[in-house]
């Protein structure tokens, strides 16, 4: 049997105290079905835990889900922790209940993309495809 090639490795995690993980799990599964290897870290992770895991697993993108309203604190913290762990080049994609007026600010801080509730899954998958493909081109020399 000819197996499909994996598209890339992504980490899906939930920083902070918010335990609503339906969204994160749906994204994790959709990414799996789209050919990604998904490292799922589960809920209630600190930004440092997420960053160090992303580095150890050498992922091509990090997806964060926050529905509690703490995104303005937690997303930048993950970016900072990644940067400190020499992984500042890894694209970080955020999602959750995020007011429109926060999005521009978060992207200026370095978030690759921010998705709000109601975004079609395919849109999210396309963004992961684009982000990981770009990252893998820099990362690898494939003959």
């Amino acid at each position, binding site marked *: 049997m000819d197996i499909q090639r994996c598209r890339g490795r992504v980490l899906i995690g939930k920083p902070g105290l918010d335990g609503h993980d339906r969204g994160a799990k749906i994204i994790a599964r959709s*990414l*799996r079905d789209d050919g990604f290897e998904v490292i799922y870290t589960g809920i209630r992770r600190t930004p440092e*835990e997420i960053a160090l895991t992303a580095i150890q697993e050498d992922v091509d993108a990090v997806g964060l889900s926050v529905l509690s309203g703490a995104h303005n604190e937690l997303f930048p913290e993950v970016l900072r922790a990644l940067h400190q762990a020499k992984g500042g080049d890894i694209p970080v994609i955020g999602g959750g209940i995020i007011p429109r007026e926060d999005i521009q600010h978060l992207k200026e801080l370095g978030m690759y993309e921010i998705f709000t509730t109601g975004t079609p899954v395919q849109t999210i998958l396309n963004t992961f495809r684009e982000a990981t493909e770009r990252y893998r081109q820099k990362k*690898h020399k494939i003959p």
Partner: protein
Amino acid sequence: MNDIDEIVKGIYLKEPRAIGRAISIIEDGDQRAGAILKQINAKSIQDSTIVGITGPIGTGKSTIINQLIAHYRTQGGRVGIVAIDPSSPVSGGALLGDRIRMMRHAMDKDVVIRSMATRGKQGGLCASAAAAVRIMICSGCNPVIIETVGVGQAEIDVVGLADITVLVLAPGAGDEIQVMKAGIIEIADIVVVNKAECPGADSLIMELENVLHQRNCAVCRVIAREAYGIENLATAIGKIDRERRKSGQFTGKRKQIRETEIIDCAIEMMRDEIRSRLQECPGNYTGDPRAIARKLIDDICVTELDMLKRKRPEVFS
């Protein structure tokens, strides 16, 4: 983190970024893989112990490893874990979820965990597992633990890669006939009965002891969630390791491990070549498959010989 020397140096300096990147390079078939593997050959490879943890789905392999990590860390060791989960044959994707049981070690720099997907390989492992183990050993990990995918009765590839193989079972999965069947149960060095507080554990242990006592295989009673029996398990692993190093069995096993890895690599390298030659000629789709396989291999050998003759004629004169 893209320069080969920087990565190799980083592995020895225990830098997580270098270790992670090196494993990716090998796993993804990056052309720098050979150069990296060539440079990581520490004496420490002989001194470290590779433990394989295998067993059916949901018996508690990850949870046991989580506790084993804690045990080895209190003794001051640096631990490596290669945790393997299956790739989807349909999409090529995978959900790598073993790590979620080990998140309490996420901040510990001396616990190196790598989740890997099988990427089409059968038998419970992935093709790059052996290389990942070696990279971890070179970064100072001892022991390195390999967690296989949830296996059935006969996925025994891990035995070809680990010094010591631990089979994890849990009560409630069949009658005594199950432990009498051939397969993985015959080649495990230690059998763990996890969830030992659950009904059926005592009879499972009794049946296992009946089957296993002839070949001196330890049965460990464990409740992984509560860390019960973990020290016993670690002691049993250590005892086997010491005995085998003393008797010379360890060296023999390592030779075997090396053979397995080389043969696997060779077959992997040939696969694409064989496939493209096979698809070239429509005649290959009729007749005896065995004879056609022979012919394809012969063809490849002849081509290689011709190439060598052209490149280095002095060898043949």
